[in-house]
């Protein structure tokens, strides 16, 4: 009799361990949404030294409208994109993510493009995208976008398209999730899933086992490999590379709207936009790579030339090439079939794939996260909301965007706000130390949290200064400071020790 009572108490208060694998935009969104529930004990597991360093960090940084995903062919993309756009409007406010909502123009330069635009308009209406309209009047187009190409004959205006810095979004989501109890495991690579009789028991990692009842696979390019660990291998994820140019802040003319060409079969085409950091960004191309090239983020002549030639077609003028800050590329996880793979399976309990989150994955992430809640409910898991859940996260106070009065106050309160480390974007030592306090352990971690290193000089002077601050705060030898975790140290050793070894004075 006593035993029975105890068991029913357990049932009522039962807590489920959830392991979310992958701290990109998708895993981070899911972590945040699940952190609202009292009876979930969440681990967010990431193989890299920081969050958001896979697919999430290098893309066009757009919050899409949701007009171009064909609901027949790609039902999940169509279902989650427009809804995600709506959710982001709330999330960027709650999480203090830099954002803007200037809308987009999809540009037709020849007759047959107009048919494409009409298709998009029709699809957009089905997908619930508000406010779209087709504009033929050149004067109106010029007013919406002064730098629009003279060859434009019509454009589809999508007022709901927005922009944000995707790496900052992931950081914000994870900070908020962690503040609400999620446990973050960095540099932790899942190498196996432990199961008994079709039920999850835990995950095996390079740092030992993590006990879990539920696994959510949000591993971007590697989602097929993780999924195969539980015997679900009905899809593959191949990398599709996109290359970009980003210009200096002073480089113009910039664009007000996000400019797309009329769509082509497997990509939305080369986009021209001005980022939330106020820099012109052009790209991407779309190059399908072999499945074993999931880390191939190099730039190529062909890719960059393609981007340049196609970007030119959308605007009156591009800035000169000598105002390029840098070129980069990102990989999109292209799934078999082309649609998102968000599913649970009969052969394995409590395993959910959130895979193939190619474009519009960034946009869809919040709505997909809420859908994961529905899937958990379908498993019959009783979810109880926390009485206290904090939706608010504040970003690091930036000197760059502060007024002179605010700057004065910042320095008075903390003199390190007067110590400017990055001269391009006026990032101060106070911000860098705050970034470290919030979890940055690498140069890139500082870069993505503060904007240092992103300016026109690409870290000419601040690299050394940031390395010194990191070494001091993390209490490590300075040469062991890394750009992006183990294997990317800034040096190969202590200079004095190095020459002594070389000359045979020391072993």
């Amino acid at each position, binding site marked *: 009799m006593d035993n029975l009572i105890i068991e029913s108490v357990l049932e009522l208060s039962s807590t489920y361990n959830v392991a979310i694998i992958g701290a990109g935009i998708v895993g981070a969104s899911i972590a945040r949404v699940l952190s609202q529930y009292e009876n979930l004990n969440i681990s967010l597991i990431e193989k890299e030294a920081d969050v958001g360093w896979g697919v999430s960090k290098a893309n066009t940084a757009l919050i899409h409208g949701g007009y171009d995903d064909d609901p027949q062919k790609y039902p999940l993309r169509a279902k989650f994109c427009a809804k995600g756009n709506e959710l982001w409007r709330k999330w960027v406010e709650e999480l203090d993510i830099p954002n803007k909502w200037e809308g987009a123009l999809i540009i037709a330069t020849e007759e047959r493009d107009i048919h494409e635009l009409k298709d998009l308009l029709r699809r957009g209406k089905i997908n619930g995208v508000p406010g779209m309209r087709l504009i033929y009047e050149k004067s109106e187009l010029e007013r919406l976008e002064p730098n629009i190409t003279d060859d434009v004959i019509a454009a589809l205006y999508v007022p709901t398209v927005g922009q944000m810095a995707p790496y900052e979004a992931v950081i914000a989501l994870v900070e908020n999730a962690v503040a609400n109890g999620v446990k973050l495991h960095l540099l932790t690579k899942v190498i196996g899933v432990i199961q008994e009789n079709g039920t999850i028991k835990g995950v095996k990692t390079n740092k030992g086992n993590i006990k879990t009842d539920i696994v959510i696979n949000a591993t971007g390019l590697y989602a097929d490999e993780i999924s195969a660990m539980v015997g679900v291998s009905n899809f593959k994820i191949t990398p599709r590379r996109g290359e970009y140019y980003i210009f200096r802040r002073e480089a113009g003319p910039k664009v007000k709207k996000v400019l797309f060409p009329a769509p082509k079969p497997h990509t939305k085409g080369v986009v021209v936009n001005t980022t939330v950091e106020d820099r012109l960004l052009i790209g991407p191309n779309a190059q399908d790579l072999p499945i074993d090239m999931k880390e191939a983020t*190099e730039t190529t002549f062909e890719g960059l030339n393609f981007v340049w030639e196609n970007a030119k077609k959308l605007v009156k003028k591009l800035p000169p090439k000598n105002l390029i800050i840098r070129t980069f590329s990102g990989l999109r996880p292209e799934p078999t079939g082309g649609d998102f793979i968000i599913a649970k399976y009969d052969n394995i309990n409590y395993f959910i794939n959130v895979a193939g989150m190619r474009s519009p994955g960034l946009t869809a992430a919040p709505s997909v996260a809420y859908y994961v809640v529905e899937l958990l409910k379908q498993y019959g898991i009783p979810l109880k909301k926390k009485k206290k859940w904090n939706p608010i996260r504040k970003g690091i106070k930036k000197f760059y965007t502060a007024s002179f009065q605010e700057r004065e106050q910042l*320095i*008075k309160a903390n003199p390190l706000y007067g110590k400017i480390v990055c001269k391009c974007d006026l990032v101060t030592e106070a911000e860098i130390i705050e970034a470290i306090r919030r979890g940055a352990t690498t140069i890139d971690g500082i870069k993505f949290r503060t904007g240092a290193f992103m300016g026109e000089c690409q870290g*000419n002077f601040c690299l050394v200064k940031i390395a010194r601050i990191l070494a001091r705060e993390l209490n490590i030898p300075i040469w062991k400071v*890394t750009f992006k975790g183990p294997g*990317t140290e800034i*040096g190969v*050793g202590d200079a004095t020790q190095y020459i002594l070894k070389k000359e045979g004075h020391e072993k």
Partner: protein
Amino acid sequence: MKDVYVDCVVLGAGPGGLASAIKVKELGIDRVVLIESDERLGGILPQCIHPGFGIHYFKEDLTGPEFAHRLIKKLFDLQVKTYLNSLALKIIPAKYDEKIAIIASADEGIIRFHTKTIIYATGARERHRHELGIIGSRPAGVYTAGQAQAFMDLYGIMPGKDIVIVGSGDVGLIMARRFALQGANVKAVIEIMPYPGGLTRNIQQCLIDFGIPLYLKHKVVKINGRKRVESVVIVEVDENLSEIPGTEKILKCDTVVIAAGLIPNIDLLKDAGALLDPSTKSVIVNDFLESSIPGVFVIGNALVINDLVDYVVEQGQHAAKSAVTFITEGGLKGYPWKRVIKGNNIRLMVPQLISGEQDVIFYGRVAKPENNVRVVFEEINKGFFYLHVRPPEMLRIKVNRDAFEPLINKDENKITISIKKVKRG
């Protein structure tokens, strides 16, 4: 925000800024302040531990830190008010004799300096791989020469073991030697031009003496490597600097050092509306080293990329004298300026305007190498013989005031500087 009223604000405490501040004070102006963004004085000199500094100015061969130390000692002796950890954020040309320089200072917050003059000595930054169009991956192990130098000689970091250096200017050559001395394996110095970019003595002392190969007419086009640099792709170029297909070679290395030129730091001057000279990537100055904003003087690498620190100091002292004239006389005279025209084979020339009423030191560079030439100042019929002129070697030519008399007499509004071949026999 605090308002401070002064006569002269010197921005940047590298050799040029130090020399300027010292001279202004020596000439009797007490209300001079020196603003430095770093936590120490000397600019880039403290990390230049090789000799070759001060041969002209101190008549002694000094290392960078020694050179800096001498200037710093003088600055302290003269008790020039100095702000460390302080960065200029904005320059506002408020009135003819009042500029406002807004400074963020770690110790004092935001300060608004109201000043009659500014000496802008903020140096230059290095070009980086993306500005050279080097594509490929973005791993650890790619540094500018200045970063690698700071790593090694300020903070004791060994940046890498197998080094490829991009650019054979003096900076690249000196870094090649520096790496070799520290026990690294310098695989190659890569130079896009058909001739080396540095001084002949440096080719000997930094490359030949250490057996380091120099690849002329080559460029690095691509960097490979996932986490750390694994190799670079180099390619030969033709006389138009275009890549020759099929000449690609892979050089294995773990470090790429970019020593491919400097770009003047002039953002605040640009924002304040100073007129620019595309050939120097800096502002236009007159023979007082004054920009188009009255009372704002520009010197050192912020004005023109100099070969020698001695020239930088020379410019600093000259600007200091000009600033003191501006301060004591309420501005400089409104001269009928004569434009300096870049004639045959002159790529850049500073100053761009002259008054004709004082001695002028011209600093310039040629576009291509030539032997047995005269640098001719056409309108005043004056020439200077050179055995050879080369783009890497700055021309420094002093012309006395007397020589400009024909300009004044003929009411000429320009002076043309050209390279002319000396006829044999």
